[in-house]
Structures are given as C-alpha cells and as structure tokens.
C-alpha cells in the first residue's frame, strides 16, 4: 500500500518534469528559424557548395574542390582584380569610418545641445537622403558634378574657385573618393541617429556632476560622454563594415558594372556582379561567382569576429 502510494507519487512527480519541456520556446523560435533557414542559411550554404563546382560550356557542373579559389587567388587575371577590389573596398570603408561616422558623431553632439532651435527639422533633413533610392542619389550627384551642365562647376566659378573643378567622377585618382563621399552624404543620418539616441540616454546628473567637479565641455565629452556611447560606436562601426563590404548599388548606378576608370571604383560587390552575371561579351560564371561570394563572406566573417572578440567583449555597458 505504502509502496503503491510512493510509486504513484513518484509518477505524479515525473509527469510535470516531462511536461516542463519548454514548448513555448520552440514555438517562438520556429518562425524566425524557419525563415532564416530558408532565406539565409540555406542560400549561404548552397553558395559555398556551388563555389566548389565548375560548369562546362553545356552548363553541366562537376565537383572541382578548391580550384575556383586557386584561380581566384593564383591566376593573375583574377587575383589582380580581386586584390584591387579588396583594396578599394578597404579605402571605401576607411572613408566611411572616418568621414561618415566622424560627421555623424559631430552632428549628434550638435543636435543634443540643450539650447538648439529647430533640432527636429535638422534631424529630419539630414536623415532624408538615407530614405531616397540609390538610383536617385546616383543620378542627382552625377548631374550636380557633371562638367557640362552640372551646378558644381558654375557654383565654384561664382566664388572664383572655378579652376579647382575637375571631372572628379571620371579621374582614376578621384573617382573612388568622390563615390565614397556621395555614399557618406547619403548615409550620414544613420550613425547620427544611433549616436544621438545614445547621447540622450546619458542622465543629466552625470554631466552636471562632471561640470560641478570642474570639467570643461571638452573634458565632459572626452571623459564622460564618449566612454558612455562607446558600445553604440561599436555597433555603428560593425554596421558600416558589413554595409560597405556588401556595397554595390551606388557604384553600379554611377559607374556601371565595369566600375571605371580602369577599375578604380571596383569593389567586391561590382567584381562579384561581373563574375556572376557576366559583362557585355564576358559570359557569366555562377560557380566562379559563388567563389567570389564565399570569399566576400569569409572577409566579412573575419571582420565581424575581430570585432566580436577584440572589441565587443572589452566594452563596458552602463545602465542607468
């Protein structure tokens, strides 16, 4: 009798344990997991698989191992373009980091000034280009900078600096810088907004305390505000990095897939496009394109890992 009771108690105990399997977690995870698997993870893995194949002229594919990567890095006809694209991409990223995020930080500081009139108007105006289509941005800036009918040459002439104007988008030495700055102009609103939000989160007491302790505006910025928004700056940097190494549209809209002159604006995105889809008489190669895409993935992965382990873990977060 006692025995029986004991077992039944035990059983009664065991059932809730099994029922405690967290079904709701699986249910909540399922939609995201399904969508990401279908539209992100599967294509990613399939791209990597495709990069290990090569197609012949009938379109039949065969497994070739790492041959595509050997071609990409070993054949000077490919590696020249690849390293050139990677170098340009790094320059493109560096310009964004320094100019876009620098100006973004500056603008956010200005916007958070307590006695600023019309702050929301500026905020909206500066953020506006981010929402415009890249095609429109490319078109507008080409018109502005057009040496024949653009307003840039006439504006410069009007202030007596006409001799400074050059066909910036057409010169090997200036094309990449010009395209980068156009992109900076478009996207400067994003770091500005993120940093502005972080600045607003800092309680006034901290700033007041610092001021009472005798810190000037510069010290307040350097020793109080900057450390507190560092996590946001980290996020901004990694967003910039990923966006820049996936960039393609603006350069395609302005310079076309050939990214001239002499490939001086060629970045990994345009290089991938030419390889995958082909260009004019050059027939596209999906397998070689997949190899380029995989190389891009590895580069981005390395960058993100460096950030995660080198930067993110050392950042201190403060909650107020």
């Amino acid at each position, binding site marked *: 009798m006692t025995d029986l009771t004991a077992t039944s108690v035990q059983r009664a105990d065991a059932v809730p344990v099994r029922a405690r399997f967290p079904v709701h977690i699986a249910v909540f995870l399922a939609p995201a997991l399904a969508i990401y698997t279908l539209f992100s993870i599967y294509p990613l893995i399939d791209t990597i698989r495709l990069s290990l194949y090569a197609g012949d002229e009938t379109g039949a594919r065969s497994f070739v191992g790492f041959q595509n990567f050997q071609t990409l890095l070993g054949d000077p*006809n490919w590696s020249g373009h690849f390293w050139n694209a990677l170098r340009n991409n790094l320059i493109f990223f560096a310009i964004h980091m320094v100019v876009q995020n620098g100006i973004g930080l500056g603008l956010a500081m200005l916007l958070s000034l307590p006695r600023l009139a019309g702050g929301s108007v500026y905020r909206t105006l500066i953020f506006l280009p981010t929402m415009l289509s890249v095609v429109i941005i490319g078109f507008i800036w080409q018109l502005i900078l*057009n040496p024949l009918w653009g307003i840039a040459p006439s504006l410069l002439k009007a202030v007596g600096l006409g001799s400074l104007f050059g*066909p910036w988008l*057409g010169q090997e030495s200036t094309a990449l810088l010009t395209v980068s700055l156009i992109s900076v102009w478009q996207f400067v609103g994003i770091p500005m907004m993120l940093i502005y939000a972080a600045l607003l989160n800092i309680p006034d007491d901290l700033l007041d305390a610092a001021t009472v302790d005798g810190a000037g505006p510069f010290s307040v910025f350097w020793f109080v505000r900057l450390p507190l928004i560092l996590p946001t700056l980290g996020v901004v940097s990694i967003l910039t990095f990923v966006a820049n190494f996936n960039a393609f549209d603006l350069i395609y809209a302005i310079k076309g*897939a*050939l990214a*001239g*002159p002499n490939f001086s604006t060629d970045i990994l995105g345009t290089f991938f496009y030419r390889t995958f889809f082909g260009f*004019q008489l*050059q027939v596209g190669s999906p397998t070689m394109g997949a190899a380029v895409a995989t190389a891009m993935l590895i580069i981005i992965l390395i960058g993100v890992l460096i950030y995660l382990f080198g930067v993110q873990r050392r950042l201190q977060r403060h909650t107020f």
Partner: protein
Amino acid sequence: MTKLHSEAALRRAGRLLATASVAAAAFAFANAASAQTLTIESWRNDDADVWNTKIIPAFNKKHPDIKVQFKADPPTEYNAALNARLAGGTAGDLITCRPFDTSLDMFKKGNLVSVNDVKGIENFSDVAKSAWSTDDGKTTFCMPMASVIHGFVYNKEIFDELKLTPPKTLAEFHAVLDKIKADGKYTPLAMGTADQWEAATMGFQNIGVNYWKGEEGRKALIDGKQKFTDPAYVDVFKELATWAPYMGDGYKAQKYPDTQNLFTLGRAAIYPAGSWDVPIFRKQADFEFDAFAPPVAKAGDKCYISDHTDIAIGINAKSKNADAAKTFLSWVASPEFADIYANELPGFFPLSKDKVTVKDPVAAKFVGWRGTCESSIRNSYQILARGTPNLETELWNVSAQVMNGAMKPEEAAKKVEDGLASWYEPHKK
C-alpha cells in the same frame, strides 16, 4: 432565426462560388483556345514604341491568331536579367540575340534551338549568319535582324557657318577639328570616356578598320598572324590619343547621354557615331545633320567600314509556343519586316538579301558606304572574346585610358596583346 439566416447566406455564398469557378474555368478555356501569346525578350528598350505600334501590328495583320508582347530590359542589364530568367524558366518565347559568344553560349547550354529548318533562313548570306552560327557554320540558332555601321555624324549648320567640308583623309579630319577649335564657339568632337565603351566602339573599332584593312586584319588576328602590338593597331591608339584636346571640358566624366545631348543641343560639331544614333538625333536635333565615313590615311585609299552584325532573334528552347515562334521568325526573315525595321529604325540595317530602300537620308548614307567601302565586323567579337581577361572589356578599358592620357598607345597595345596571349594559343608564339 439567426441560424436560418446564416444557412441561407452560406448557401448563397456556395452558389456564388460555384458560378465564379465555372466562369473562371470557361474564361481560362477560351483564353487557351483563342490565341497563343509570344513574349519577346530584348535589350532595345529605346525601340519599344516601334515594336508596339508598327512591327507587331504589321505581323498581326498576317497572323491575327498570334499575340506578341515586347518586353525590354535596359541594354546593360539585359544579359544578366535574361540569364537569370532562363535559369528560372521564366524567360520569354523569343530571345533577342546578341552577336557571337553570348548567344552561342546560350545555344550550347540548350536555351536556344536551331533555326536551320525555319522558313526564311535562306534569305541570309553566310556572313550575315556568322554571328549566330556554331564555329563550324553548320547550325544557325538566331534569325539575323540587323547590323549597325560606324561613322561620324556632323552638324551641317556649324560646318556651313565655319565654311568646312566633310573630311575624307586623316589630315583633312585634323584640319577640320583644328579650325573648329580655333573658332572656339563649339566643341569639335562630342565624345566622353566615362562609360568606356564609346572609346572602344565609336573610337577604336570605328576608325580602326581603315588601319587593319577590315576583314583581312580581323582574320589575321584570329589566326595569330597579326598582333595588337603591330604598327596598324598601335597607330589606332595613337590617333585616339590625339582626340583628347578636341573633346569637351571634363570629357573624362562625360557619359553617353551627355555626349548625345551635347551634339543634339548644337554645342558640338562632330559626333563619332553608331548608325543607331540616327533615329534619336532625328527626334531631338532641330538642325540638319549629315555623316561622313571614317577618314582614310591618303586620298584614294581603299576605305573600310565597321558594319557590325548586331541583333538577331531566336527561340527559347523551353517555349510552349514553338510553332508560333517559328511563324514569327519566318516573318522576321521576310522583306516586309526588313522594310519596316529599316525605315522605322533608320540606323539598323537589315541583313537579308532582299533590297530595301532606306528613306532617311543620313541612314541611307551610312548604308550607302556598303557599296563604296568594304564591310567588316568588330575584331573583338568572334572567338577572341572567349577567354579571361575578356578582350572586349580590355579594349574598352585601354581605349578609354589612352583617351584620358593615362596610358601610352604602346602600353595599351601591349596590355591587350598580353591579355590575349595569356589564353589564346595562336597568340602565344
């Protein structure tokens, strides 16, 4: 009461649904029975109007039971978009074919079918078919439509004002350019290098045929008997390098539409052209313009023109309307189509053996050179554009660089030859 009501409503809904489905089925059946619809894939978005208002209605007069839809992508996106659609199985029934390897590649992958058995193919010469045939010339996979001719278009009013006559030799050409530059009111040469292809197509291929003697040089290049480092080719680059001072301010950032506008606004005197520019100029320019052939070295020299087989049309192997598609292709081979095409789109010259009268005087002048000069096609298209680096892309790059002054003519020639020799056997020696 409520229950009754809802039951009635349900019944009504059921009846409605039944009627709707029957109607839909009937509609679908009628649709399938009445007409086959053919969709044309093309990169000629500029010509959509002519296709929709002239060519397709003319076809439908003869074949009212076949519906035709013209669907165009921008030229630079066509190849990529088409290949994606072919891979996905959603491409149209009829595919506009670019010349040589781009289309040959589609044929080899089984996306295009042979048109050897389509009525009307006998209207075309072997040369006309060469751009859309296998290397052995046995199978043709696209019905040739038209070729384009290169030359120079000039603004007659500016020439009259400055008392200039269209040049025949290189010396005269430079004399004319110098005079326009000295006058200072107009840009002598409307051309830009930002898009790169103009430098190669309207520059290198346009004037080059006179240097390498058309087909003779083109074939010698394929056989490996001539190289890009030979004087004939270096001289073309040297000539291109001399054009820079005559081009507009900031030509390095000047794109193709800018160049067209510069000319049609009457601000430039000479425009290195493809004949496809003629219909656009006809629409936009409010002054008289005319054309002259690429200048030769000395008066009396034999002249050559780039008469490039440019556009054809083939059948998607997966098309469900293959018979209708063949009917359409036969019609494309007919004199009726040639006549409409030549006169609605002056500047595209039919390739069929039928005699077609081109009414536009400037376009007629272009096609008239076929009688006095020898025709050749662009030397980078057949066979030589098969490897990596791609010869056509290389030519765009170096021609633009030579005109930008970023590269010496000899360096340009060497770069192109080295690229070709890196994969093409006959040039490896």
